[in-house]
């Protein structure tokens, strides 16, 4: 075919269309996808970026620290809340808040048990300006003394009233179940008031490794491409120190232990743990579903019907070591413990009917759907998956739930969920320790 102006022109048009229609080869391949959305991961300037393709925009900068901090002070939690109200070396807290507002952004602190984050919301056209401001905040933070000291006072008060508060007991108890003291949480002793962090300690933490790139994940939920995300990072987050984040040392749970504190009157608390499948195994999904189902069942039985407990929580926790954890607080912990053990025994011995499993699966499906409803829910869910390294849990949960059979429950419980340990605070005179360890 002769090479003339027409063919050149047509070739150019075709090439343009091809380039127009194809994403850049820099665009990472989604590693989780469905007909509704997709999730991709890549690294930019040493920062882990997780990108969720959604219509609406949501940004979240997360850091791998939460209230399971090293010395149980809860300092990191307070630091993160304080950061959202902080100023910078150039701007007072008021000036910073005004600048962010003028740029169309809204900033909140997100503090979970295992990671903390700063949540930025803004309209797409305001993103660049807002991001510059967040970069400035993380690079040159200056805590607002008035607000931070109020937070510390609140924390202090919560610790002193915790002598009466069973929730505090329950959170405290789990520390006793880990072999390494470094993961322990708050000392349950009421005299642990000296563990309140000071303002100076918090200020010092700003320059430590917590706010470094290696300890950070940027979650972008919305219609942005790699190049645009890179543009945002350059000159803002990439200015943060790279940091030196050593790999987390594996932690071990104590097994086969019943720790008992006798407390004849008033509310008591229980924390129980079982070893559980690693989040990389397909069985982890089943363990998570079992925990959620048992939580609802125990809430109904112990809290609602029998009123033995005020609250009940049952979770699958993949980090620092995969385990199932049951927390209960309330007036009748001996009976509650016996009944909880009995329910678990039933689940372990194939006593869950297909009908009850079916109904549990149906609302569990809704729970998973709700976790992914809005852009912000998506961002929080993927941040959690990233830090827990358990992406396995988030691939097509609805389909996997449908495939769950009654026989899977005892199989997973018998195969993986062993080595139960209990920490018990309450009236021990009525407690049969052996029955608790029979699980």
């Amino acid at each position, binding site marked *: 075919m002769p090479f003339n102006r027409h063919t050149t022109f047509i070739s150019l048009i075709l090439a343009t269309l091809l*380039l*127009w*229609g*194809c*994403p*850049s080869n*820099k*665009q990472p391949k989604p590693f989780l996808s469905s007909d*509704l*959305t997709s999730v991709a991961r890549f690294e930019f300037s040493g920062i882990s970026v997780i990108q969720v393709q*959604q*219509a*609406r925009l949501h940004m979240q900068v997360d850091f791998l620290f939460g209230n399971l901090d090293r010395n149980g002070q809860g300092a990191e939690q307070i630091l993160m809340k304080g950061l959202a109200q902080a100023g910078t070396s150039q701007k007072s807290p*008021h000036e910073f*808040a*005004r600048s962010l*507002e*003028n*740029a*169309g952004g*809204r900033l909140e602190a997100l503090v979970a048990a295992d990671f903390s984050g700063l949540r930025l*919301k*803004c*309209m*797409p056209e*305001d993103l660049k300006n807002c991001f510059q401001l967040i970069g400035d905040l993380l690079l040159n933070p200056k805590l607002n003394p008035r607000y931070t000291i109020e937070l510390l006072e609140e924390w202090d008060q919560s610790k002193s009233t915790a002598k009466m508060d069973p929730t505090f007991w329950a959170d405290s108890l789990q520390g006793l179940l880990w072999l390494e003291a470094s993961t322990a949480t708050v000392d349950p002793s009421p005299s642990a008031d000296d563990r309140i962090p000071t303002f100076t300690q918090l200020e010092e933490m700003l320059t430590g490794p917590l706010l470094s790139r290696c300890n950070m994940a940027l979650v972008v939920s919305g*219609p*942005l*491409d*790699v*190049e*645009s995300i890179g543009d945002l990072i350059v000159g803002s987050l990439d200015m943060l120190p790279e940091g030196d984040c050593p790999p987390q040392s594996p932690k071990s749970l104590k097994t086969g232990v019943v720790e008992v504190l006798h407390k004849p009157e008033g509310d008591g608390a229980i924390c129980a743990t079982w070893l559980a499948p690693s989040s990389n195994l397909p069985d982890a999904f089943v363990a998570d579903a079992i925990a959620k189902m048992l939580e*609802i*069942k125990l*809430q*109904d039985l112990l809290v*609602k019907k029998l009123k033995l407990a005020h609250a009940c929580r049952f979770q699958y926790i993949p980090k620092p070591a995969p385990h199932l954890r049951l927390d209960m607080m309330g007036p009748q912990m001996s009976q509650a413990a016996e009944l909880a053990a009995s329910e678990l025994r039933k689940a372990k011995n194939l006593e869950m009917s297909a009908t009850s499993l079916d*109904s*549990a*699966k*149906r*609302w*569990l*499906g*809704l729970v998973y*759907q*709700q976790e*992914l*409803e*809005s*852009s*912000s829910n998506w961002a929080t869910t993927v941040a959690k998956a990233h830090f827990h390294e358990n992406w396995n849990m988030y691939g097509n949960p*609805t389909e996997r739930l449908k495939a769950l059979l009654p026989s899977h429950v005892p199989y997973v419980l018998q195969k993986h969920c062993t080595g139960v340990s209990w920490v018990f605070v309450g009236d021990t005179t009525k407690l049969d320790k052996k029955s608790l360890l029979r699980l």
Partner: protein
Amino acid sequence: MAAKPFWSWLFLCCVTWAQAQQIETRMLQNGMTVAYVQDTTRRMTHFGLTIRGGAALNPPGESGIAHLFEHHFWSSIDTLARQSSGLFTEQGVLASANTQTEHHGFFLTSSEDDADEALGMMYASLATCLYRPLQPIIFAELIAEIQAAENFPAYYLQTGMMNRMWQTSESAKDRIGKFYHIRQIDIDKLQAAIQPYLHPGNCLLSATGRKESESFFLWADSSFGSWYPVSAGAGLPSMKLPKLQKSEYWVEENAFCDDPILVMAWPVAGSRDLEGLGKLAHDFACVARTKSSAFYRDLVEAGRAKSIWWEWEGGYNPGQLVLKVSPFPDSIQACLSTISKTIEETTRYPSTWVTKKGWEAAAKQFRLAQSTAWDHSSIRLDLIGERWAAGDPEWSNTSVDGFSTTDKLAQFAKSHLFQQPHVAGLLIHPRSAAIASQQFTETTAIAGLASTTPEEPKDKNPATMTNGALGEFEKSLSPMRILFVGTTLEPDGASMTTLKTVASLCLAHPDQKLYVNGYSDGVGDGVKNYRLSIDRAQAVQTILVNNYGIKPERLIINPFGEAFAEFPDNTAANRHKNRRVTFTFAPAEAQPRTFLF
């Protein structure tokens, strides 16, 4: 880069898609309205049932029926368990409900697979809740909720504000219910109260999900189309515009209230505001609460208050513009003074109270809030139900109105805000109540809060003027101005002559009490100016008492600070004229005040 146009295009598509979501509506043969929003981005289906009625269901003199109906509605569902966020059922459905002043909202969320059952459950609950016995657990939950509400001071105060502002029956005002009323309710009483409202023409069924709209409408018709009520809709709630209560100001102690909460409200429009006043009030609140507004600058940045928040409360309740301030305990007085001054600034100097950036920020935040709210399917249905229940003819229109211009907002402020708040209250911990109560009472004058506060003298309505010799006295007082030498407290020569005239008039009418109104110029700190206006009024009072023998209890000090300036503060001569004392008649019951600073 080649990738950019593609992704930009994708982004535009997404934005366009997000904006293109429309509410489609139908009316079933039985008169029930149905609304649907197709949303293909999630695998859940949400249903909403809005019933006009709300607290209006409460019989005269009683409360709690409406709230009990809300709790009773889902009682036909056998629960597997309850969670704090709502009610999960064995059918894989999450249920929630709310009671407003004039409507109820019932909501169900399910996965797509369970949507059929969810819709059936909605109808079954509606049909059976009338006849199912009231279970003790429902009463227990209700009472627990009432107790919990009292533990949230801000919520408690806000509910109180609504009750104090709008004139509806005692029971209809109380959305939560009172213990002693609730205990007397049985199933017959509940049925009698709610039956007239359970009419298809009084209900809106709404939904959002991935289904095509037409298939949803067929679905709705097969579920609700055969519903014909026991009564034919007689006794549907009369949707009259609410009337205002008498103006009220109060101080209340609350042990859960660690920091003082000061709330004041201005009425704007009823819940069926069809003139767009609510939108203006909403936009005004968005601007007034930005960090670029004079309110934030003078209250928070100036260290007088921890936080401020302007809010438009309307749509599902009679509409009011509310200002909530969390003052530092030792700054309540200063906050009141500042609020007064700043409100005046919004109306008299509309171009200075918020910067252009502040207005732009408010417009951005408004768009962000709308986008965020619409992102949650259940909130979406609640918003649709509210607008429908309020009788808004545009309820199914999702197009976003533009943000009001600064001129419009200034006009709004002038017509609706330049008056004392209709209700105002201070909630405070008992430990600081005594001093705060005193502060609040004594400073109501400067914020224009107290009903006994005299209006600004020159605005006085001639119809209220006294006749006869006393009337002449009052008329002659009106133009009198006492001015001072420089910034001192010493009246100038001409003013000393004026004082002599005032004294002679007072001696001629020995039973008439007078307000001695003190004013300052607008230079410097508002609180200091308020103090100066007290000092000026006291200096004049001292002269009248010491030089002319007027009894001090006849002369009531009434300071205004820098409010009501007669001249712009732009020249020294004008500022001199603004530093003044004037006289107005005080009622016989007016008592001398004690000033705390």
